[in-house]
Structure formats: structure tokens, C-alpha cells
């Protein structure tokens, strides 16, 4: 049977690519991603699930999914001119994608599925830093974190736990890792941006409290608090917390092994080991 062996949560800030290219190891962000990459390299998974949100690039408002899976045999990107990011082609783990699609629909999650799609920075910023050779096949899971009405935090948490269960029921010998990406407090382009900048971090205290609930495994409290109104107070992309919450449904109530705060950007980095390699 397949199993989920590790879980990660990281930011997908598009400007990280150019910033790290410019500052190299002097960039704190480079160091944070290197810490997560070392953990992932040790885990060495066969397949990756990316839980993230599109930013009007893969999908648009003519047909906007609440939950979607990419089930092509490959994908390319970035589709949004992420500054200084190379153009990548990534293999999609199509058997896993199709297993997830049928299993999740069977479990009452009515997913959309795309057989031809490209991906934006939400998928490729994490991969650029964590699997830069793009050698590990991926399955992108898209959650609507931007366009009201958002799915509830409760439903996203249950989506995560259902993904875990359905992977464990998959009759394949694969070791799967999951990467969620997104910010905890972030305003992009709106009234809450900082002077001279394209973004702002309106609610660092909320971001900090979220990390407290991760440490203390108070997932119920986090899910109850993460209403659309509360997430919107944390910025116009504050709904990206839903990607993290879906990941917590996968990890269950266990403390992250790595938890790095990046409060000035409303970001954080986290890692959980969910199974020992020799148990695979």
C-alpha cells in the first residue's frame, strides 16, 4: 500500500526567486528553504502532492473551481511570469492523480479535473527550491483560497484527512510526500499594502497565533477560528491558510519537527515526518 511519509508547508512568494538569486546564501529565505530541502532529501519520496491555490492563471473566473486536480501527464510553468524563474516542465503522477480524483469524489469531495493545464508560482516556487531538478512527479491539488465563497476550514481539514486515507488505500508501493504552500497573513496590491511596496502583512499576530496552534496541536481551535471574515482581516490572500489547514488534516495532531517563522512576510516553513523510511 502507498503511504504519506512526510508533510511540508512553505510560502510561495514569487519574489523569492529573484531575491535568492541576488543574495545567495545571505538570504534568510534561501536558508529556510535549504532546511526544508534537507528534510525532504532525507525522506526521498517517490511522488509529491502539492496543495496550493491558483492565482487566476491556471483557471479564471469564467469557470473557477472550489477544488481541482491536475491529471495531465505533464505540466509546465510558471504561467504568470514569475521574475527570474526558469521555465519548467514537470511530470504529473497521473495514476496518483486519477486515484485521488475517483477516491475523493467517492468520499463526497466533488473535484474538478483538468487534463491540460499549466501552473503558476504556487506550485513552482516550492519546487524551484525543494526539487530543482523536477525529478519527482507531482499531483497538484488546487483549493480556492481567493474567490468568495471559500470552502470552509472544516471542509479543508477533512479534505486533508480524506487524502491521507485514500493514499493509504492505494494498492501501490509508493512513498508520497505532501507540500502545502501559501501565506498566513498577506495583502497583495490592496489598501493594506505597506508604503512603497506591492504587499503588506496586515496581521502578524494572527500568523503567530496560527503557529502556536501548530505547536500545541490545537487544530480544532484553528479550524474554528479560520472563518472567511477572520482570514480576510489577515489580508486579501489570507485565505491561503486553507492550504495549511488541509495539510493539518493529513498530519493529524502531531507537532511539526521543523517550524520556522518569517513574520515580516507573514510566512512560515514547517516539516513533519509521518512514517519512517524503513517502514516503507
Amino acid at each position, binding site marked *: 500500500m502507498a503511504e504519506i511519509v512526510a508533510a511540508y508547508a512553505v510560502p510561495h512568494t514569487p519574489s523569492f526567486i529573484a531575491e535568492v538569486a541576488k543574495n545567495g546564501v545571505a538570504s534568510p529565505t534561501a536558508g529556510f528553504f535549504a532546511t526544508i530541502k534537507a528534510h525532504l532529501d532525507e525522506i526521498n519520496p517517490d511522488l509529491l502532492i502539492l496543495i496550493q491555490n491558483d492565482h487566476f492563471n491556471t483557471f479564471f*473566473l469564467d469557470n473557477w473551481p472550489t477544488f481541482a486536480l491536475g491529471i495531465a501527464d505533464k505540466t509546465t510553468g510558471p504561467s504568470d511570469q514569475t521574475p527570474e524563474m526558469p521555465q519548467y516542465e514537470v511530470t504529473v503522477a497521473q495514476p496518483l492523480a486519477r486515484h485521488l480524483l475517483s477516491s475523493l469524489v467517492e468520499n463526497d469531495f466533488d473535484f474538478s479535473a483538468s487534463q491540460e493545464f499549466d501552473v503558476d508560482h504556487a506550485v513552482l516556487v516550492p519546487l524551484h527550491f525543494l526539487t530543482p531538478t523536477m525529478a519527482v512527479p507531482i499531483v497538484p491539488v488546487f483549493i480556492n483560497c*481567493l*474567490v468568495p465563497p471559500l470552502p470552509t476550514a472544516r471542509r479543508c481539514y477533512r479534505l486533508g484527512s480524506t487524502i491521507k486515507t485514500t493514499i493509504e488505500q492505494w494498492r501501490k508501493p509508493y512513498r508520497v510526500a505532501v507540500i502545502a504552500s501559501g501565506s498566513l497573513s498577506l495583502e497583495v*496590491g490592496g489598501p493594506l499594502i505597506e508604503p512603497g511596496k*506591492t504587499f503588506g502583512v496586515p496581521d502578524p499576530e494572527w500568523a503567530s497565533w496560527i503557529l502556536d496552534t501548530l505547536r500545541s496541536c490545537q487544530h480544532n481551535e484553528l479550524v474554528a477560528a479560520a472563518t*472567511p471574515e477572520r482570514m480576510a482581516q489577515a489580508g486579501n*490572500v489570507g485565505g491561503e491558510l486553507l492550504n495549511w489547514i488541509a495539510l493539518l488534516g493529513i498530519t493529524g495532531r502531531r507537532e511539526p519537527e521543523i517550524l520556522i517563522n518569517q513574520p515580516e512576510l507573514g510566512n512560515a516553513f514547517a516539516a513533519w515526518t509521518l512514517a519512517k523510511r524503513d517502514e516503507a
Partner: protein
Amino acid sequence: MNTYRIHSFCRRVLHDPNFRQRLLETPELALKECTLDDTERHALLSGDVVSLYQNGASAFLLLILSRYCLFGLELPIYNARMRSLRGTQTEASAEQRDLP
């Protein structure tokens, strides 16, 4: 104002470099390629992101106009205009908007 048209326009700016170039060189002419009403066309041409936002356009998508410095929206100008909305009714009702 039809915000879907504004959002579609912003998306085209991001994904269509030839259109973007025409908008930089001859904005009024390039905008004639788009289905927009007079209010929408005027708001775009004058870089009036305040009224676009107040009428429900997405800040996330409007920022694309500043990214490519269209309609005089270099970042300091875009930033000042958008920040002028802080604490206003528009901001207070942000959660009621169709889009962020």
C-alpha cells in the same frame, strides 16, 4: 461597472505581451480592442485604481497594471492611490466583495 470585464482585461495584460506593448505605446487605441463601457475605459486610462477598486475590482488583479506601469501606474503612484483607501468604507467592507 462590470468587474468581470476589468478582471479579464488585467489577466490579458499579464498573459499577452503584444497587447501589453500596444497598451504602453497607444493606450487609447489598444483599449478599443476590448469590450468596455465609457466609465471602465476612462477609469483605466486615467489609472484610477481607487474607483476601480471601489466598484469591486480585485486589487490582486489591478496590481498587474502597476507591474507593467500601464496608465501611469508606476508603483509609488499605485501604492499611494491604493493606500488612500485605508480606513475607508471600501476597506471595511472588503470581505463583502466578489474578489480580494
